[in-house]
């Protein structure tokens, strides 16, 4: 019987395994993940879950896998994928044979070599137990010191403020998310957090964490000493490629073609770990929920012979306080930005263009612009600046005609 093995049981891996069954595959499906829990959604961990407003949100109900004859090995790390033998080696040495294997090992938090990083009370957020540790620290503490204000940092800062804690964030760039969205939009996010009482220090970084057996203060590169009850560091992630290395190429993640297949026979990669060749953006690696879910769905169909291309325009959201932030597309550099709506009033969309082509749309509280711009991004459209800037113009009017 054909056996599909999925390595990694997060959003991407869980969705891939489930979709195989939902598409009617009746061979063997093995889902192996290092975390002991059934696949769960990570987005709530910095938001509703952290604030105690929701319990875990599962990709499928925990009992679903057994009901659908999916063999699960949760709490089991995969050591290596041995492509020559077509087996997956688990920790402890057990080997699981595959006909096709999907690598969905995700990403892990970056841990820069900062002295004191290992002190108790210096926390970060990736997994449900990480979120539990921050929740616990927030219960007994009243002051959090944070390092890094990307999306995770900004969301955790917002949640901690909503829980009533004092929050100070140190960020190396000039605004939150400056390297992702530029200083103007970053400034809007800064203003949002300032109005909610977050103290932000820019152009500064972590020199060392201090404390007598436990975190007491962060000393910054500029010589500030910021005391707090605990620290949360969020300075980005890196792809987890440990299982490759025996013949599977690695280059900022695991490179795959547009069908999510690696250069190696029978080996696929999805989610955060997959550097996929996107028809619009070229080779990119994307670390968002929607991407993980959609790649999981698509790889399952391709395992069953669909040969479909992953051409999703990419999309994610970030809820901070009462602001709904969404972003579509992918842009690491742009030469023009068009704003519709009002940045000051926190109801705006910003369109990032390069040589006239719309690459990405960022929105705060104007989310329909994001959704409606996605067909334009996918079509590599070059919309007129005036049309983009006109808040009355429904972007659907600019969509290319349907086939």
């Amino acid at each position, binding site marked *: 019987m054909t056996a599909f093995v999925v390595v990694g049981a997060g959003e991407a891996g869980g969705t891939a395994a489930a979709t195989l069954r939902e598409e009617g595959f009746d061979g063997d499906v093995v889902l192996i993940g290092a975390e002991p829990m059934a696949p769960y*959604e990570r*987005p709530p961990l910095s938001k*509703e879950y952290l604030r105690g407003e*929701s319990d875990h*949100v599962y990709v*499928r*109900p925990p009992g679903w896998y057994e009901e659908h004859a999916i063999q699960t090995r949760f709490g089991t790390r995969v050591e290596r994928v041995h492509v020559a033998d077509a087996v997956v080696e688990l920790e402890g040495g057990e080997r699981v044979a595959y006909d096709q294997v999907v690598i969905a090992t995700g990403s892990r938090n970056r841990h820069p070599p900062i002295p004191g990083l290992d002190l108790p009370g210096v926390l970060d957020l990736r997994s449900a137990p990480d979120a539990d540790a921050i929740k616990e620290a927030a219960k007994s503490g009243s002051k959090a010191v944070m390092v890094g204000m990307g999306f995770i940092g900004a969301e955790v800062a917002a949640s901690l403020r909503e829980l009533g804690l004092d929050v100070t964030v140190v960020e190396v760039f000039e605004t939150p998310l400056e390297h992702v969205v530029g200083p103007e939009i970053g400034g809007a996010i800064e203003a949002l957090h300032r109005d909610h009482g977050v103290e932000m220090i820019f152009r500064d970084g972590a020199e060392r964490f201090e404390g007598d057996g436990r975190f007491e203060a962060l000393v910054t590169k500029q010589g500030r000493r910021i005391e707090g009850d605990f620290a949360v560091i969020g300075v980005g992630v890196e792809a987890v490629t440990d299982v490759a290395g025996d013949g599977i190429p690695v280059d900022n993640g695991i490179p795959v073609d547009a069908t999510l297949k690696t250069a190696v026979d029978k080996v696929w990669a999805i989610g955060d770990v997959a550097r996929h060749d996107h028809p619009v953006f070229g080779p990119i690696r994307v670390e968002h*929920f*929607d991407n993980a*879910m959609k790649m999981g769905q698509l790889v399952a169909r391709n395992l069953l012979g669909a040969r479909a291309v992953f051409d999703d325009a990419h*999309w994610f*959201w970030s*809820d901070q306080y009462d602001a*709904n932030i969404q972003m579509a597309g992918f842009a690491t550099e742009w030469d023009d930005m068009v704003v519709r709506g009002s940045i000051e009033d926190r109801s705006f969309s910003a369109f990032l263009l390069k040589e006239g082509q719309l690459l990405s749309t960022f929105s705060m509280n104007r*989310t*329909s612009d994001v*959704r*409606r711009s996605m067909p334009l991004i996918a079509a590599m459209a070059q919309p007129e600046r005036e049309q983009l800037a006109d808040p009355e113009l429904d972007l659907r009017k600019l969509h290319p005609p349907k086939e």
Partner: protein
Amino acid sequence: MAEWVKVGSAGEVPDGEVTAFSAGDRQIAIANLDGDLHAFDDVCTHQQCSLAEGELEGTTIECPCHGSMFDVTSGEAIGGPAVDPVGVFEVKEEEGELRVLVDEE
């Protein structure tokens, strides 16, 4: 027991649009697909956002918050993070009123 409840006026939902209405303590969304009305729970089963504020494309409504997708004719969750369906209701325009058939609670 189910009962027809007035939620608005006939013609209130333009073609291709979705509007939210209150029916008692329920929020119900009504979509107009080429003149056919479809009523469904306005509350997304993922994280309770109002679906009426989302995008309607064909028979699919997409949640404005996190991209969950539902078929407005059946309530089925067909994409995005939501797994559970939304409830659907019978809807009609009669005597100048927009009416929805809801269970009495």
